[in-house]
């Protein structure tokens, strides 16, 4: 999805409507590097993007239904009243301000915050995608984002945030390789 999306972006590597490019965006007319792109050309990338999008949505739906039906969301979703102080303490520990990690159950507050925001980015990336895919037939979605060109910005921003999440995730796994086993098997039921 990311690679084909960046190939589509390369066809008009600018943000903002014609004649009104957004002045805050520093990369106007800079196409994303070719090694990040997928699909070969604009039409090919569009075919891939709109084909795989269905599987992303299906995957997301199955995930959300499982989370809700199994009650698993209680372990994973960031609940501010429960998790805020734990997240701050964990962050302090990572920054070496605090010597010992705060007590945690299966996930700590910071992990919950990260996973919950990734779910939110996932939802926003799908809806902003629909907003720029069908800005006439689904014009209320486009309007909810503040218009076509704003929705394009939101769509690209979600990609950046999800990419950052993935990088952080991989870095932390590399630092704690033993967590891979728990992630794949689901760990011990508690």
């Amino acid at each position, binding site marked *: 999805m990311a690679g084909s999306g960046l190939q*589509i*972006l390369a*066809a*008009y590597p*600018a943000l903002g*409507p*014609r*004649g*009104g490019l957004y002045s805050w965006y520093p990369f106007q007319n800079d196409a994303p590097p070719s090694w990040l792109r997928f699909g070969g050309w*604009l*039409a*090919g990338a*569009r*075919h*891939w993007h*709109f*084909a795989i999008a*269905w599987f992303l949505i299906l995957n997301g739906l199955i995930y959300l239904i499982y989370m809700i039906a199994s009650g698993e969301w209680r372990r994973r979703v960031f609940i501010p009243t429960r998790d805020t102080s734990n997240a701050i303490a964990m962050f302090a520990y990572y920054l070496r301000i605090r010597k010992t990690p705060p007590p945690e159950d299966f996930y700590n507050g910071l992990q919950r915050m990260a996973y919950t925001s990734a779910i939110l980015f996932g939802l926003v990336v799908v809806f902003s995608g629909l907003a*720029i895919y*069908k*800005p*006439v*037939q*689904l*014009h209320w979605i486009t*309007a909810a984002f503040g218009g*076509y*060109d704003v929705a*394009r910005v939101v769509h690209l921003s979600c990609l950046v945030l999800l990419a950052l999440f993935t990088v952080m995730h991989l870095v932390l796994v590399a630092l704690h390789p033993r967590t891979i086993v728990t992630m*794949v*098997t*689901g760990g011990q039921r508690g």
Partner: protein
Amino acid sequence: MARLITRRKLLLGLAASTALAGCDGGSAAKAFLAGMGRWNERVDRLLFSENRLAPEPPVSELTPETAFPSYFISDSMPFAPDNWTLKVGGMVARPAILSLEQIKRMPQTGMRIRHHCVEGWSAVAAWHGLQLRELARMVGASRDAQYVEFRSFDKGYYSTWDIESSLHPQTLLAYGMNGRPLYPDHGAPIRLYSPVKLGYKCVKYLTEVNFLPTRTGGYWEDLGYDWYAGV
């Protein structure tokens, strides 16, 4: 409690099926994309409503005309011949050859619309002209005509549309832009214009409109771009 599908089994299964699919990557990928393309066209047709109008952006969002891109495929800008006419044919009761003056005498419709290009940019302009549905009524287009083909004098540029999008109230044979006659860079004397399709479906420099039982493709469509291209 024993579970039938564990996460481990699921991952192993996925890995195996990916490896199998990888054996015949090229043609499998092509078949997959073609299948998903047909699925997306069905969804596109379901989403389309003949009564849903594209919202009109405020005047303040009009794009400066120098910033509104204009593409053609000929080596230089195509200019209409002096004896230019529009030929309307195919499955119609009364085929017609119309001059620009005759078309301008028919009921005029105007709209201010955001244009969506396949490349990802948008731009706003006002367009005026004849509703295609009005022309279809005038020539007595057959109910069996499921497609409409648009041909041009821009080096063979053409496209075909589904009949529903063609008869949408905002689908125009436009002869004016931003309140004055259409300039050659935007398809003079007459171009197809509609908010319900991507820009490459909106054929400029029109010469022919044909009501047909089957689709014939299009310039970009034949190169591999999406045929339906609904917005």
